[in-house]
């Protein structure tokens, strides 16, 4: 029973990682930038959700504002920080991204205070349903549903719509896509809008899950999401999704059986090292 419950909990956390990591992998696939500041957008989403929800009493409004603000912030990061330096070597935008992330973390601390913020009302936090001895809180259920809906929606967009096909074409061969009339700059904007909105929603949900939004909450997620996209074979959305779920489950077991040696946040990297030794191209990457 414990075995099943650990798998279930692992998958729930995996869904959260997926919402974070997809945005990262999209950016990498398109621009070859390791977008560390994505974790800052994640924390921004959490802060927007909690401040708006506490001020207005409406969680839905909190999420709406968080989604919009995160999407705009992520796009602004692209326009103002990355676009002017795209012609430099790949490590230049990465250094900028790390710097930006630190600035954002300290910014949250200065604006919202060094102590984190809890939701005034968080009805889903402890409320739970119990199925066959496994209890899941409403927040955990919402996390799963939200990630499935959004990611399936994205899959349909990429597979069926004209804009989606244009986006995929740009990722595969930007030059060819451009000559077929796809606007690569627009694709980039759509990319950052969507990825950042997802990260913002994930941030809000994690804030609800912990009932605590803190300046450093992006920290652990930032490098874990990096591990995930490397595991998934940099740039592969499907690989990233699988890697997210696998990492969630591995961590859940690790938290119980490996915690004397590693804490949960280190397990992802242990797993990453092991996988890269066996499959240097990542789980689904092409060799």
């Amino acid at each position: 029973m414990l075995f099943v419950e650990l798998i279930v909990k692992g998958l729930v956390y995996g869904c959260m990682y997926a919402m974070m990591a997809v945005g990262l992998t999209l950016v990498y696939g398109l621009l070859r930038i390791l977008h560390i500041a994505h974790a800052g957008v994640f924390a921004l989403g959490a802060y927007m959700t909690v401040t708006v929800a506490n001020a207005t009493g409406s969680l839905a409004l909190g999420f709406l504002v968080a989604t919009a603000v995160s999407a705009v912030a992520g796009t602004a990061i692209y326009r103002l920080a990355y676009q002017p330096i795209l012609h430099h070597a790949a490590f230049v935008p990465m250094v900028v991204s790390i710097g930006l992330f630190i600035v954002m973390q300290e910014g949250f601390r200065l604006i919202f205070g060094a102590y984190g913020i809890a939701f005034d009302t968080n009805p889903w936090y402890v409320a739970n349903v119990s199925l066959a001895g496994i209890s899941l809180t409403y927040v955990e259920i919402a996390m799963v549903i939200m990630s499935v809906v959004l990611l399936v929606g994205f899959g349909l967009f990429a597979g069926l719509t004209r804009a989606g096909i244009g986006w995929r074409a740009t990722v595969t061969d930007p030059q060819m896509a451009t000559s077929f009339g796809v606007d690569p700059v627009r694709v980039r904007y759509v990319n950052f809008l969507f990825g950042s909105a997802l990260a913002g929603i994930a941030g809000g949900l994690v804030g609800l899950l912990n009932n605590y939004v803190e300046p450093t909450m992006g920290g652990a997620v930032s490098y874990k999401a990096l591990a995930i996209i490397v595991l998934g074979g940099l740039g592969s959305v499907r690989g990233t999704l699988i890697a997210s779920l696998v990492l969630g489950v591995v961590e859940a077991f690790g938290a119980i059986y490996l915690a004397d040696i590693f804490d949960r946040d280190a397990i992802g990297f242990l797993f990453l090292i092991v996988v890269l030794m066996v499959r240097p191209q990542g789980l689904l990457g092409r060799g």
Partner: protein
Amino acid sequence: MKKGLIAATLAAAVLLAGSASAQIKIGFHAPQSGPAAADGKSSTIGAEIARDWINEKGGVLGQKIELVIYDDQNKPDQSVPIANKLIGQDKVVAAISGSYSGPTRAAAAVFQQARIPYISAYGVHPDITKEGNWAFRGVQLGQPQGKGAAKFIADKFGKVKVAMLTMNNDFGQSIAEGFKEEAQKLGLTLVKEYTFGLGERQFGPIVASVKNDNPDVIYAIGYYFVGGPLVAQVRAGGLKQPIVAAQAFDSMKLIEIAKDAAEGIYIVGGMDRGRKDPADFQPYLAEFKKRAGYDAEAVSANCYSAVMLMADAIKRAGSTDPAKIRDALAATKDFAMLTGPLGYFNSVGELYSPLEVTQVKGGQFVGVTVIDDQAILAPPK
């Protein structure tokens, strides 16, 4: 108009006279930026309240106390130059750490060498006082805290099965060691020990496993920001066992985060907010809330008491000679700290102080009992 002018001149004269009179300089370092900034901010406010209240009552030895405050970013590589600066440039006669164990441990060595008395207000690493006889600790070491928790559980619940959830840093490990040692003597059964990192907020797997162990009591060691999500997730997982927690759960933020799930949990080494003594306790809580905008927790009270203790030692020494202050500190007997009476310091600068046990009731920390047992809480040498 003329009156106003005279008043202004007088005020200026008083101000000038004030700044001209000699000051007793005490160094203070705490993290004011970075991840530990929250505790550092509280620490600093606590210390400043002590300074202001001492000065309002005329200071010490007829002189005002001046706190020379630096941000150590919770980094040892910052606290060492800060210590050197405090000694060489600011010429402090004593110093206080309002920081965690890492920076405090590093700075203690510098103060030891310069022979400046130093109090670690709440840093719990054993090595801080091992640097020599110039460092003192204003809080119990982890081990007696853990032993006290075992005693409380055995007294309250009998020879029960306990699952222990520990944070994997110095703080958590030292409390866990003391707990395990005493639990065995008292006939408690430790069914399983779980560890987690400081950054952990998702306890689903641990909760699932604890459910499987089915203990009688859950003993949790961690900071409030880990503790809040932890107790909420324990309750959300359907576990109804009593939770006993370590000192660092003591923060109103814990209740804010965990909400109803925090109800009923016990904190060994907590601070009973309804207590009437010492006399400055309730005024302190009110003043802290006024200055900080949020409720005081133990770390701020520790820093307040450390400054008060240092001032008291200077007064008893009758001198600002660091060696005499050190001797007076070492001779401290029955000093009223906000967190409980300080009985004495042992030969290595560790204090004896009873442990208060509190319980969360109606969203407040309420006193339950006090463990005052020399055999268990005596500071290790």
